[in-house]
């Protein structure tokens, strides 16, 4: 079995006092991050940009194979190092066994931890910085899964933020690294850079015009993945799609980032074309979809998560296309999160049945949309040269 070996280069650092200075869960809950509220984004089509790095500690078995004692040991040694990072000042830090399943689910709904991580307990932890732009999962599939998230198409900024944390850490702990294979990860699909760059896109017009499958196929063909709202194997709710790199070995980090950026820009272009075309050719359908979304969200008393998310997508599209005053743009974003099951139950301060959730969800959307004026009907845009229906052709290389 694995030899016991000093994990930290310097073990002399005194342990920090237990969590006295850390951010409380209630504070995290109360203050959603800028990117969750749709602030700071430069494109209404791109919600957020995310970078994830997978790292492991040398001489310890990967979390999925390690004995429980080893996992606890790795966590114990890593935690104080992570909490002491300058970026993690006053962070939220918790061992997963100390969080309720609803609290863990809130972190998933905010994209701060993965669904897989939420299922873990003893020997795993989550650390989230105060701004909720940076999160670190300890003992997920790898010892460290670190993530930076920024609003809009800002992959480089997210990478720089995370790279700094990674560089700080590499002198504190000994990473599992090989000069040929790069960062060694539990799954060979993450080998090399250990980097996953992903961008969350809102693509309602490509869905409405039934071009989305074509786009997904084109993106897949050049080695990028398209996933739903909550990652692998999830449904594309609210017309939200995550595009991310699939290969991690053989390219430099910033090459991966630049390629994804280029692809995203092309997708944005296609979405804009599709929006212009819808406006010209299917104005009535568009008016109908946005009007219905407005009416149902504003007046319903029972609404499922799926229905609400898909209707909020139409409200967001309506904001982008001038059906609603522009200051309402962030409304749909924030609601996307607030009407999720765990957020609802925290709000209600108790466990809710599915029926109770549907009722509370409708109550919240009614309240939030109370001041939203009836959708106007913007004049058809005159500059509509977006109608050219070019076949989707990606010139990646």
């Amino acid at each position: 079995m694995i030899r016991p070996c000093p994990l930290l280069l310097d073990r002399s650092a005194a342990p920090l006092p237990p969590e006295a200075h850390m951010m409380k869960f209630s504070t995290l809950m109360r203050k959603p991050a800028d990117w969750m509220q749709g602030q700071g984004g430069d494109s209404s089509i791109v919600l957020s940009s995310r970078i994830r790095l997978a790292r492991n500690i040398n001489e310890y078995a990967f979390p999925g194979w390690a004995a429980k004692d080893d996992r606890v040991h790795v966590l114990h040694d890593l935690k104080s190092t992570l909490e002491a990072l300058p970026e993690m000042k006053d962070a939220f830090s918790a061992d997963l066994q100390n969080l309720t399943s609803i609290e863990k689910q809130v972190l998933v709904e905010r994209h701060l931890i993965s669904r897989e991580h939420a299922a873990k307990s003893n020997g795993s932890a989550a650390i989230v910085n105060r701004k909720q732009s940076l999160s670190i999962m300890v003992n997920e599939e790898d010892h460290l899964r670190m993530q930076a998230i920024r609003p809009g198409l800002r992959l480089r900024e997210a990478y720089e933020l995370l790279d700094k944390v990674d560089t700080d850490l590499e002198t504190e702990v000994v990473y599992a690294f090989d000069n040929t294979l790069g960062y060694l990860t539990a799954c060979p699909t993450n080998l090399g850079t250990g980097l996953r760059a992903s961008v969350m896109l809102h693509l309602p017009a490509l869905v409405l015009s039934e071009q989305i499958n074509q786009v997904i196929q084109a993106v897949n063909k050049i080695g990028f993945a398209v996933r739903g709202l909550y990652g692998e194997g999830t449904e594309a709710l609210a017309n939200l799609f995550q595009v991310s790199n699939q290969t991690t070995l053989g390219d430099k980090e910033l090459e991966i980032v630049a390629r994804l950026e280029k692809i995203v820009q092309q997708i944005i272009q296609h979405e804009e074309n599709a929006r212009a075309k819808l406006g010209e050719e299917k104005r009535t359908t568009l008016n109908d979809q946005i009007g219905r979304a407005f009416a149902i969200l504003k007046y319903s008393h029972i609404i499922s998560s799926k229905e609400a998310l898909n209707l909020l997508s139409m409200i967001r599209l309506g904001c982008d296309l001038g059906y609603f005053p522009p200051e309402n743009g962030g409304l749909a974003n924030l609601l996307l999160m607030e009407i999720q099951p765990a957020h609802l139950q925290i709000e209600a301060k108790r466990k809710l049945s599915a029926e109770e959730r549907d009722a509370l969800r409708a109550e919240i959307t009614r309240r939030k949309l109370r001041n939203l004026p009836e959708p106007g009907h913007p004049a058809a845009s005159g500059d509509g040269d977006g109608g050219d229906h070019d076949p989707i052709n990606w010139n990646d290389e």
Partner: protein
Amino acid sequence: MQKCDVCNDQEATVFLTQIVDGKMQKVNLCQACADEKGVDDPTGFALADLLLGLGSQEAVKKSSDEAVCEECGFTQSDFKKTGRLGCAGCYNIFGDGLDSLLKAMHKGTRHVGKVPVPFQHTKELQERIQRLQGELDTAVADEAFETAASLRDEIKTLETEAAKAGA
């Protein structure tokens, strides 16, 4: 005659081809090696398993014909089951066989990105050794033995340094 990929001695008589994610993998075996690897039912047989066992002779327990990581006890069938490896050391054990999987999965098989500071020195040394090795091969081919001797000494010094730095 096409030689067996495993023993590299006997004539290959068993030819395996498998397409994984659109990439073709081929392995040619002699009858003896095919029997030893248990290739009798091609339908229930993953080429990846076989590839994982190639080239890591010291780690392969001949009796059970399954590679085991000495550091963490992880086996080839654990990899097949989970798709994950057990520890960093597993890459040394299963590494050679992984190459073809990595080729199918990634853009390249060599890391060209970030190198953590503590590893930068050994990486540089390794690259220098590799370059000198190339020069040495040329020198030997050209029968420039004096140059070859000094290159060999230089490589030796660097290797000692690399071993020290890597420890």
